[in-house]
Each structure stands twice: as C-alpha cells, then as structure tokens.
C-alpha cells in the first residue's frame, strides 16, 4: 500500500491541530455529562479527523495477477528405464504419464493458463515435441541432479511459472539427496512433483546394497554385508526372505532374514573364505517372494580379486622378552602375514633370526639399503635402543614410510622411549608423538579405545548402539604402560589409559600419516599379559595386533596399479581403466608405457596403449564402452624406460544386462516431497493430478499484470465517517451535552 495524496508531515500537522481544537472544545463543553461520555465523544471526533486525514493521503494498493498464457509451465517427464515397468493398473508408468499428464483434462486446463514446454529426461535432458509420444530410453539411468542443472541453464531469463516434474523419484545416477535438492533450489523456480508409481507400493524384496571387499586374501575370512529391502509382504513375511551367496556358481552360504514391519531394510552378513585365486564372480540372490511384483531386482553380481599375497612384516626386538614371543606368534598365526624377525641377544649385538626365507635374509641384521628394506610392507620396532642403528638406516626407515608407503609400528619401552635415543634421529619426524622423559606409568591400569580406535575396530568390530559388553572390558589391568603426552598435530589417538572415571586420559596408542605411509606408536609394553591372563580361547589379544598391522598395511602399494571404474556397469555405459605406475623408488614414473590387454566374456582379446595423464591418483587411463554382458579381464603391462623390468597387474569388471534402474523400483515420495517443499512447490501423486491447476502458484519469474486499486475513494470511507459523526452526535444528545 502506498500514499499518493497529502504528505505525511502535513497530515501530522493537521492531526495535531485537530487534537488541539478538540481539546479546546472540551473546555467549553456545557452540560453535566460524565467523564466517560466526554472521552467517548472526543475519541469519536478524533477518529473522524483521522479518517479524513487518511482519505486526504489517498492510499493506493497494487495487485499482481499472472497473465494467462504469458509464462511458461515446464513439463519434464521421466523416461528412464524404470518407467517401462508395467505396474500402474496394467499400464506402464510411461503410459500413465502420457495419459494423465499429456492428454487428460488437467493438461487442457493448465494449457489455458500457461504456455507449455516439454522435456524428457533420463541421464540427460532433451526437448520433447508436443506431438511425439513418450518413449523409454532403453535402460538409461535417472540423473536428477543433472536434470535440474540443465534446466537452470536452459530456463535462464525466460518467464517461467513453475516446473512440473513427473517421475518415480529414484535416481540411479548420483543418488545423494542433498546434491539433488541443492541443484533444484538453484533453479529459483517452484517445482511441482508428480509421483508416477503405484501407491501404496506393490510388495517387493530387493537388494538395497552390497558391501564386499574388491580384493580378498585366500588365506583369510572376509565379511560380505548385504542390505535387503522388503515392503508389503504381508503374511508371507513370517516365512522370511532367503538370501543366498554363490561364488563362481557354487553356493557359499544361505540365511534368512525376517521383516517385522511393512517396510524394512534388514542386514545380512556372510563370512567368506575364497577358494580359488584370481577373479571370482559372486552373486547374491533373494529367493522371490510369492507376493512380490518385481522379481528382477533380486540378484546382485560383483567381482572380487582373490590373491595369495602375504604381506611381509619385519619385526626387530632389542632383547629377548615375553612380549616378543607372544607378539610374533600373534602375527605369524594369521596366514596373511609373513613375519621375519630378529632379536638382539646381547651387548655384542648378536642376533637371532626367525621366519626368514633363506640364510641370506637379514644376514647382516637390520637392512642397510632401501632395496632390502622396501621389500617389506610393515616394520615393527620393539623396545630397541637407537644405538642399534646408524644414520643411513634411520633415513631408509623414514623413506620406507614416506615414499614406499610402508607402515611403521613403534613399540614403547624403556629403550625405545629413551629421550637420548630416537628423538635425535631422522625417525623422530615419522613418529606421531615427541619422545620425552617421564612417560612411564607406575601401577596397573586398563586400556580403552578412543572414537578413532572404535572406527578402526582396534579390538574388533563393536557398535556401542548394540548395548553389548565392550570386548576391551575383559582385558586385565596391566603394568608397563607408557603414555603419549605430546602428540603431534594431525596424530590421532586410538586408545587411551583407563584410570578412574574421567574420559580425559592420556593416549597410549596413536597414529599419523607420514608421506604415503602410516606410523603407529603403541605405549603398551606388556600386552602379552592380556593373552596370558585371559582364557586361552579368548582371541582379543590377537585381534588387537592384527588390527594394528592392518591399519599399517593398507598404504603400501605395488609398482603398478590398475582399477576399473565402475566395477559393475550396465551394458552401454562407459568404463574407465586407470592406475598408477611408479619407478623403483616409488616415485611417479614420467615415462609411463602401459599397455592394456582386455579380454571379453567371449574370450576375444584386444590390446590398447593407455593414455598418460597427470591426475591425482592416476598416471594412465583408457576409456571404452563394452559391447557384451559378462566378465571382462584386464591386464596392465608396465615397462619402465631404461630397465628390463616388466610388471603386470590384473583387474576385472562386470557388465550387467540388468540396469540399475530396475534395482530399486518403488515410489520415492520422500525425495519428491523434499524437492517440492524446498523450491516452494507441492507434491501430488499421479492419481491426484486434478488438483494441480489450483495448486500451481506461479513463481517470481512469471509474467504478471499489476493492477492499481484506490482505497480512498471508496463508499465505505464516507459511510464510516458519517457513522462516526452520527455516533458522536447521538451520545451528546443522549447525555445532554448539547
């Protein structure tokens, strides 16, 4: 509302004068009227004056009205693979869109008010001609983020009322909801979403997610975790859903999950010890429920590379002690580790070797050259005195972690923590804490993991939400603890001292990244007491040390790496084969000459030269689009310039004939509602589209007509003024105020 008549200052002066006059009149007032009556009459007079002043100011209001057929209503139709599913009263979802949104009376009504622009989208956005029917783009995936970003670009500067998005709401490409919502909000246009899928959803079981390592050791057991989705199974839910895991078409195990609610996602876990080396095909299958409508999303295939590679551990101890024997046994009992150790026996530095491959290994004691040291993946230094090493060996150790990506496990003790020892060597930088005096703890205490220790499963997998007793609570209190008071920035504590109820206790185990590798320091010098003072069937001690080694081990890398991304893809999509090639000092090799041999499912092979690229984590790359469904094996060959050395590494990927579009097929109302709410639109199901024309409120980019409405020359202003004056006269007459 704005005022176009009398200026405000004059209005205020007028009101002030009127107030003075009314006040003066009250003095001259005759009659014996009471105070209330007089106040009422004065108030009515003042209101009348106020009304006159308001009218004199000439108030005017403006009203915007959208102009019919001047702004665009953008219709976007989902034509991805899932829209071909026939579950809408014997019609496909696509046909349902066609009928309800393009040909029905709703569309006619909308076209009266808006100019229509039509797009179709799957993994990209395309203009749709009015007269052409919708058709599904084979098994293309749904990319909602890309849709909104493309629309934002295309619609910039156009008068757009709103966007209508009809879809089942399941993004199979880039499915992070927040990214999708952010892209939608960026358009700055209301989005009205229409859900096109059965409601309530049809009964279904599906595989929501499979988590499995891409590489397994043949000598170890690995976890494969599966999330099984169930919905609407009704009475058949009591029989459960059977989950079967096969390895190369041989059944590994099966189990049942039992849903307790109408819609539920249930975990299922298998433990797998692979039988065969090389690339193994695994399949997870859900036995179809008689009630379900979508049996095709009950399988999931994945590939795993099974290796016999044993990680090499070098363990050096300063003197014979129980910790050495127990620790060595814990490492050696795990078939994934090959442990070579040497323990110094006396002051003359005689040493005893164990676990060596031949008499030449460690013949001179601790390795003196990089070639010899870099052959290992992890080095464990026990309670050793720094005197046992020379400067060159310290530098080799430092480079072992920094360049090789090796893991260094440094055990606490009176020798290793001597402030006159390692603190003055090249190794001091590698360690996650500053070695100083006074770290030894007197007495017996317990050990608890920190949040990071829990994440690293230091004492095995444990979820506090389970409510079960933590495994570390069984550990006996022990002597021989060294606290790590002065951790470096960037170092993370994995375990701390348990001394009293306070959580603010010093760290006992910590790690940090150093170059490509990791160093871990353990200030618990007598862990053998855990093993020796707990029942023999308790494996917590072994678990602790194996986890420590695994934390360290993950960083070492071979000279040549190869990865296929994605590891599983639908037919027609592109796969990227990439990796890194290193020289003998594990520096990026600028003279990369990598050849790739690709073997197709039918056995045919082709060899391609990879393209050199300079990218984080990649030095070579090759892109191609497979033409057959099945397993592809890829071998990368590296020949370094100036050497006779040749390195080969293998990878594989799986091409499926089943699109990920058909994996999760239910209506994602949550996402569609969120998109609508965050953009100022609304959500309807396709069965409720008749409410759309009234729901759509054009956004700020639509073309509006502005109407000016005068408020001062209205009859009700005169009526109100007369009413006020009459009321004032009436009271005066009634009260004898003349």
């Amino acid at each position, binding site marked *: 509302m704005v005022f176009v008549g009398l200026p405000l200052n004059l209005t205020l002066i007028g009101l002030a004068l009127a107030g003075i006059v009314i006040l003066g009149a009250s003095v001259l007032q005759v009659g014996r009227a009471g105070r209330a009556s007089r106040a009422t009459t004065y108030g009515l007079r003042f209101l009348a004056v106020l009304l006159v002043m308001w009218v004199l100011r000439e108030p005017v209001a403006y009203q915007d009205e959208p102009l019919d057929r001047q702004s665009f209503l953008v219709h976007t139709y989902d034509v991805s693979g899932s829209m071909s599913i026939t579950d809408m009263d014997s019609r496909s979802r696509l046909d349902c869109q066609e009928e309800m949104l393009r040909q029905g009376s709703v569309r006619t009504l909308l076209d009266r008010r808006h100019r229509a622009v039509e797009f179709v989208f799957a993994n990209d956005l395309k203009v749709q001609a009015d007269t052409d029917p919708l058709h599904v783009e084979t098994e293309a995936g749904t990319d909602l983020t890309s849709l909104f970003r493309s629309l934002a670009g295309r619609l910039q500067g156009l008068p757009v009322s709103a966007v209508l998005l009809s879809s089942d709401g399941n993004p199979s490409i880039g499915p992070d909801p927040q990214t999708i919502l952010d892209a939608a909000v960026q358009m700055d246009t209301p989005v009205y979403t229409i859900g096109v899928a059965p409601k309530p959803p049809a009964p279904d079981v599906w595989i929501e997610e499979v988590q499995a390592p891409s590489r397994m050791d043949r000598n170890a057991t690995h976890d494969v975790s599966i999330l099984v989705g169930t919905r609407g199974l009704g009475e058949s839910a009591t029989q459960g859903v059977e989950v079967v895991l096969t390895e190369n078409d041989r059944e590994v195990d099966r189990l049942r999950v039992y849903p307790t609610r109408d819609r539920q996602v249930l975990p299922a876990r298998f433990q797998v010890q692979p039988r065969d080396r090389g690339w193994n095909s695994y399949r997870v299958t859900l036995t179809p429920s008689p009630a379900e409508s979508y049996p095709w999303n009950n399988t999931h295939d994945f590939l795993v590379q099974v290796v016999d590679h044993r990680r090499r551990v070098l363990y050096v101890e300063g003197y014979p002690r129980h910790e050495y024997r127990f620790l*060595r046994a814990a490492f050696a009992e795990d078939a994934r580790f090959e442990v070579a150790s040497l323990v110094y026996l006396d002051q003359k530095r005689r040493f005893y070797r164990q676990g060596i491959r031949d008499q030449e290994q460690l013949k001179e004691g601790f390795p003196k050259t990089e070639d010899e040291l870099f052959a290992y993946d992890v080095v464990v230094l026990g309670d050793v005195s720094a005197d046992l090493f020379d400067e060159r060996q310290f530098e080799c150790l430092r480079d072992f972690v920094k360049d090789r990506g090796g893991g260094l496990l440094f055990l606490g003790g009176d020798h290793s923590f001597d402030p006159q020892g390692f603190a003055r060597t090249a190794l001091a930088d590698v360690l996650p804490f500053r070695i100083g005096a006074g770290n030894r703890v007197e007495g017996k205490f317990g050990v608890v993991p920190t949040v990071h220790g829990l994440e690293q499963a230091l004492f095995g997998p444990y979820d506090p939400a389970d409510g079960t007793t933590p495994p570390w609570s069984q550990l006996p209190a022990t002597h021989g603890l060294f606290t790590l008071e002065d951790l470096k920035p960037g170092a993370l504590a994995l375990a701390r001292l348990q001394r009293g109820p306070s959580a603010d206790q010093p760290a006992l185990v910590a790690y940090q990244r150093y170059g490509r590798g990791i160093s871990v320091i353990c200030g618990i010098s*007598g862990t*053998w007491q855990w093993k020796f003072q707990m029942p023999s069937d308790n494996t917590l001690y072994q678990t602790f040390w194996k986890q420590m080694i695994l934390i360290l081990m993950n960083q070492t890398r071979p000279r040549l790496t190869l990865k296929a991304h994605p590891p599983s893809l639908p037919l027609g999509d592109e796969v990227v084969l990439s990796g890194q090639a290193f020289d003998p000092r594990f520096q990026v090799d600028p003279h990369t000459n990598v050849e790739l041999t690709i073997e197709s499912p039918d056995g045919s092979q082709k060899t391609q030269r990879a393209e050199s690229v300079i990218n984080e984590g990649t030095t070579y790359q090759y892109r191609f689009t497979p033409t057959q469904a099945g397993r592809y094996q890829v071998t990368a060959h590296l020949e370094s310039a100036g050497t006779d050395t040749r390195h080969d590494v293998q990878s594989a990927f799986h091409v499926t004939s089943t699109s990920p579009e058909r994996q999760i097929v239910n209506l994602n109302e949550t996402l569609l509602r969120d998109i609508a709410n965050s953009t100022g639109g609304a959500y309807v199901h396709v069965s409720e589209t008749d409410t759309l024309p009234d729901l759509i409120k054009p956004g700020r980019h639509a073309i509006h007509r502005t109407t000016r409405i005068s408020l001062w020359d209205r009859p009700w202003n005169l009526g109100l003024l007369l009413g006020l004056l009459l009321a004032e006269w009436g009271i005066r007459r009634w009260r004898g105020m003349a």
Partner: protein
Amino acid sequence: MRERQSNRRRFLQDSLYAMAGGTWASLGSRLHAAQGTPNPELDRNHPSLFCFSRLRYPSLMRVQDNWDAWPDADEMFLRYLRRVSSVKLSPLSWRQRVIDVTELGRVYDAPERESPLFTRPFLFMTGESRFHLDHASRQTLGEYFRRGGFLWGDDCVERYDYSVQTLGEDHFFLSFCEYFSEILPGARMQDIPFDHPLYHCVFDFSRGSPRLQGQPHRDKGLFYQDRMVAMVTAGDIHCGWKHHGRLQKYYQFALNIVIYALTH
C-alpha cells in the same frame, strides 16, 4: 638334626645371596641411572622382566634332593644369564619366585581370580623323585600351556651310592613323561629332534643336551600346535651349574632353553 642343619645352612646361604643380589641390583641401578636409562629391573612388576620360577611340588619318594635342590644353582645361572645376554631379569628373590603346586589347584577352583601363575610364562621344575599331579593341577597346567606358558623339567638324578659309578636313576624323568604326555589333549610327548631350534638358537648342541649324570634318555618335548610347550632333560643340567660351573656347556644349554622360551 642333619636336616635342620641343612635348612639352616640353606637359609644362611639364601640370605647371603639375597644381600649380594640386592647390592648388585643397587649398583646396577646406579650404573643405569648414570647412563640415563631407567632400570626396569627395579620395578618387580615390569612386564619386560624374565622370572626364572621354580615349581614346588610334593615328592612321592624319600630322596635327598627334592623340588628345592640347590637353589643357589639358580642364582649362578641367572648371573651367567645377565652377564652373557641382554635378557632383563626379575629382582625377585629365589623364594619369591617359587610357585607352589597348590596354586594350580586354586586357579582351577577359581579361574577368574588373579594368580601369580599367570604372571610367570616360564617355570622350572627339578627333583629326584617321582611326583603326582592331581586332576586340578593337570587341568591348570594344560590351560597354562595353551595360553603360552613354558615349563622345563630337569631330573636331579637320584643316586643311592655315590661311591659307585652308576648313571643314577630317572624317577623324575619318567614321572614327568608320564604325566605331561596326558596333560594337553592334542599334544604329543616325543624326542626333540636334533635340528630343533632349541639346540641351535644360541649355541649349537647337535647331539642334544649335555649330561652331567643320569640315564641316557633323549630330551623329550611336549609339542602342541607346532610349539614345544614343555621339555624334560634327564642329565641333571641344573647340578652342572652348581658343581661344574667352569664347564660352560651347562650354562650354555640353559641359555638356549631360556632364549627358546622367549622367542618361540
């Protein structure tokens, strides 16, 4: 009377050794302190320390030397160990290092209770007599081995008449083989092969342990899951420390045993 005199003599010997040991430890600690390195041997509970513990058990026969034969021999060996190796030794006295076989029964009855047995991964057992281990003791020893413990038995070799040149008896050795072969299901008592690391980890003993006296039995080992958890020698090595200390081979073989126990 003779027994009382013997006990008094032993007590005096023990006291002298304890004082000497204490003086030595004190000197050692000052030396270490002067060098700037903390001396873990001052902390009796330090987990890095090696404790040479004897097992006390009741004899079934009347013999001259029982479980506590020649305690000073242990000290002589430990002095040798300290001199020639970097093994860090417990400061506990000989008596403090003893584990009574009744402790095995107590552990069996109350396994959750803290026991000194499970702070001593190394046990030594000697004597001339046959002995008996009851069910509870055997069960506890089985668990002791499964957890990683090691026990060495050495026959002190009873001789009825020292004036006659005989090899001596093997009561202890046979008793040991009899009981220990059944202590651990899945374990087997067998001759220790001559190429076993026990015989070569420090010094080489290609023909087995040295023999001071006693029957010419091969050394026997109790093997459980590829690890030797116990062994018995028939040649009275322990007396070799006491009476033939100038012959290093008895010390050296015991050193092999200790190093084996601390590395395997």
